[in-house]
């Protein structure tokens, strides 16, 4: 090692520390990126053909979730309302509003509006709305405070780890079955404790983390 000179040992040490330390630092910096809202798209508002406000319709007018999402209790998918559901009211009120013109156009032409998806899952995930509703998982538990959303945004990351948090320990996320559609529900002093809710709502906890529960 004659050619390297007397300081080579030190240079090697410093070099190693810089490389290893730099890598470690980089890893630490990169590590949380998946949880940034940039990646999860939580609170991200998508441009929509009509600036539909859940806040106005749910909190303001008091429409039940099921008025539009009719299939949520019986089907895997909650159902996106047909244009005629909008027109039940908007053929009477705000009939000339400019922002509703895509809706009227769709109704007249038969070509539906294309909403951008806010909540989406990969194709190999088979999520079922009806069973979550039946077991006391509230709409807002996964979809966020819908009653405050002037424009709809994504309430949760929908990561598999997020799914599993609840599937491993469902109790804390449950509410009484009759409160599922209540966007203002909060755990109160009279709310049964989580373990009791698991029992009362007949949540079968075995097999909740089986792969086949969601992947087939």
């Amino acid at each position, binding site marked *: 090692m004659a050619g390297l000179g007397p300081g080579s040992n030190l240079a090697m040490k410093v070099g190693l520390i810089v490389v290893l330390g730099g890598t470690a630092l980089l890893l630490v910096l990169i590590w949380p990126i998946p949880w940034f809202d940039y990646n999860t798209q939580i609170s991200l508002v998508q441009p929509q053909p009509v600036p539909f406000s859940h806040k106005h319709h749910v909190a303001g007018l008091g429409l039940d979730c099921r008025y539009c999402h009719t*299939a949520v209790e*019986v089907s895997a998918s909650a159902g996106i309302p047909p244009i005629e559901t909008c027109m039940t009211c908007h053929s009477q009120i705000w009939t000339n509003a400019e922002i509703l013109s895509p809706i009227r156009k769709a109704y007249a032409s038969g070509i539906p509006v294309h909403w951008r998806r806010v909540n989406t899952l990969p*194709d190999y995930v088979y999520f079922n709305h009806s069973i979550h509703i039946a077991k006391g998982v509230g709409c807002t538990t996964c979809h966020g405070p819908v009653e405050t959303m002037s424009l709809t945004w994504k309430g949760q990351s929908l990561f598999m780890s997020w799914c599993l948090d609840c599937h491993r320990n469902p109790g804390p996320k449950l509410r009484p079955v009759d409160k599922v559609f209540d966007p203002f529900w909060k755990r109160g002093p009279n709310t049964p404790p989580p373990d009791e809710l698991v029992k009362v709502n007949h949540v079968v906890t075995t097999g909740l983390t089986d792969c086949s529960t969601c992947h087939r």
Partner: protein
Amino acid sequence: MSPEPKAPGADLAALRRRLAGTRGRVYWRSLEEVARSPSFLAWLEGEFPGLVGAIDPGLDRRRFLQVMAASFAFAGLAGCGPEPETRYLVPQVEAPEGIVPGVPRHFATATMLDGFAEGVIVKHVDGRPIKIEGNPQHPASLGATSPWGQASILGLYDPDRSQAVIRAGGSSTWERFSSLILERREQWQRDGGKGLRLLTGTMTSPSFAAQIAELRRRYPEARWHQWDAANRDAAQSGAMIAYGRPLDILLDLDKADVILAVESDMLSSAPGHLRYARHFAARRRAAEVGARMSRVYAIESAPTLAGSMADHHFLLRPEEIVMTLFAIAGALHALPDQGYGAAAPPWAAAVARDLQQHRGAALVHVGGDQPAIAHALAHLINDSLAAPGATLRHIDPVALEAGDQLGALTDLVSAMNAGAVDTLFILGANPVFTVPADLGFAEALKRVHISVHLGEYFDETAAACQWHVPETHEYEAWSDARAFDGTATILQPQVRATHSRRSVHEIMGLLLGQLSPDAYQIVRGYWQGEAEKPGEADFASFWTQSVRDGLVAGSSAKPVEATTLPDLGARLRPPLSARSQAPTILFRPDAAVWDGRFANNGWLQEMPRPHTTLTWDNAAIMSPATASRFGLADENVIELRDDQNTLHAPVLVLPGIAPDCVLLPFGEGRSKGGAVGVGVGFDAYLLRRSDGLRQRSGVSLRKIEGKWRLALRQHHQMMAGRPIVRTGDLDSFLRDAEFLHKEEAEERKRHGEVEASLYPRRAYDGNAWAMAISLDSCIGCGACVLACQAENNLAVVGKEEVLRGHEMHWLRVDRYYSGSPDDPETLFQPVPCMHCEDAPCEVVCPVQATVHDSDGLNLMVYNRCVGTRFCSNNCPYKVRRFNFFDFTAKDPRPRESWNPDVTVRARGVMEKCTYCIQRIREAKILADRENRPIREGEVKTACQQACPTEAIVFGDKNDEASAVSKRKASPLDYALLDGLNTRPRTTYAARLYNRNPELAEG
């Protein structure tokens, strides 16, 4: 490359030597296996045959690694950050009534084979039909389906189906076509329809019958002909000989103690075969529940499903079959015995005695491929066995004007040749392809002034006609049809017809002067006319009820009294036949594509044919002895020549074909009619003659140069040298029901196997899903294979990939032989995933992509799989399938036809049977929503639901009352490769043989 196989003469000798050196009952899967031929051993050595050809030669290893490294790097980059693609939610504008998104709906209708209806229920998801199930209420289905029924849904979505009205090669319109016909009408009205001819397939439709009657009333000179290549003329001629009138026979196989099956199609394709198979199998399993097991004799020249179920199987040449029937009839004194017994094989007398002893509970069934005289003899024998009224019933023929299709066709062709046919409508048939070569249909067609073809495909006939009108699929139009017993079904469309497609009824309506004929009005109008007869006041409720149920209540035919003509016995004489040196050619419809109509159906093309396990081809099939006589081996090419035509065919050597017979399945070798079917196999119709529809001689056979590779599923997934299929005799079972378990225990002891495991035993307290498969019941029809394909989005891979062993069927039906290769017994064994409790595949997966769930199912997590294929290597049952290529992306099937509840697998992912996890989950969610356990029978796997014989039973083995628990409690229950301690959830019931002690071999 594997060496050219030796001539099988040498192999056959080696094979006999090897078999002679074994003790007891030995099962073998193929001739090559047992003979240990060099080509076979070479095959076994190569783990992935043909892989060399699959890799792009321009891509060397170094370059490949460079490309892959770059791909991985970019894939890694793409992995960070949100999903780039925007997805849309597209609502409906107006919601159709009754459709809940994601919740399937079911509609009854029927699927048809040669005019006979099989009741089905079509499953719709979000308005799209995606799966066919049997209609449990329908007498011809009882909830089961045939392979054709399962595959019919793929036919509906076939992108190759014809889409436009075509005139002389150029496109035209329905309006132009209809105005031409309306013009012609004026002339027909003047001359009574002279020169107007119709040609259809076999018809049973009541509405069509009414339309034909109306047509004849208006144009009395018009003529209607029917032609199906696999028609049932012989059965009707047999009835004419025996009873003096055409008759259909309905079998009551549940009442039959002794059955003589004469190349019988009662389990495979005869009208009513699904029902027959159900009743037949129930009697084969009877011993397990303490009832009486039936005994089956089979005599045949070509293998049938019924023959493989027989307790005594006799291989005879066609003329020997007739002689044997004479001998049996003689022994039963059904006809004056003129020493027929002497000419017949010695066992015939014993069979006759057994039939005689079970008078009133015995029957003879003769398949549609047998000549009229065999049918007449069967009537005679059945009559003397007092079968009518006991084990079979007579009804008037269900098919319209059943009888002599060939005669009618010959009349038509001679009229065409004489220039007497002015306008010919060919409705839903393909005569240019299917008519016997000697009639020269295509030539005669040129002399017809106006020829019109209505068909689903632009096929051989469409190309030869001046007009072609696209026909609706059976799931696209209103129609009606009758089942084997006369029960009528009103067919309701499952989707709206597109592309100016028209149904037969609409063409008939046009002929009758309707300007815009509508099948709905025509069919409904007919039934309204029927219902308005006294007693049927409320037609609307009758219509709704009939359409919803998928059958018209009380429409089955009433049994008729029929007595054989008094002098019948004296009139019947054995035909004179001289055995020539040239081989006898046997023509039989292909087991998958039938007479060619399903040739463009990829599922059916890739379905391993029962017995041969051949896919994507037909072949000249002959026995080992015949092959060695002609110096032939598998995949040799032969030239078959008669005075008119020559054809080249590959040789397939198969045990169980009569000596000096060559079996040519017809239906393949299409030259037009869709990208899937064209160019597959060879056209056996070229040698078919009107005087030899099912068999003929006078064909010279010559070996020519070349090799024709056959995509057999036979060698794949070998399970050599172990007791895979277990059998026993009814007698030993009755003596000691536990005989099988004792055998097993002995084997374990001999091999020093102990039941021990390093893994802790896991308890499954909830549902423990399990399957039981009865070898006594499996007839090997293949309906389960196609049901699985339809339910689980299995890809079609094509001939080249099947040759490489890359087929994707999750469920395979293995074929085993026992006995002499000249006349072996055949067994079928369906093999899905065993769902081992201690699964060898799981422990070797580096990424935990295959794991157990809490119900004990062994499942694949596709999104975890990285494609190491370790699991498949470690699977002792070889039930795992790997996506070597992106098969699903290449599938031409439209996206909306896939099952939305099952992941479509991509390249590089392992897959296998899941016990239809999507069905289990659906039932579980439904039950859980109602806070109750899943009920017995609520989950049916696709294979179980399709199975006509209830051979496959699925359910919760923790529930002692469940059907699967009862099957597993049977002393005949055994597990495959038990010694490996995999604790499989799928188990089998051994097959029992009910041998005649008189015929028991030493």
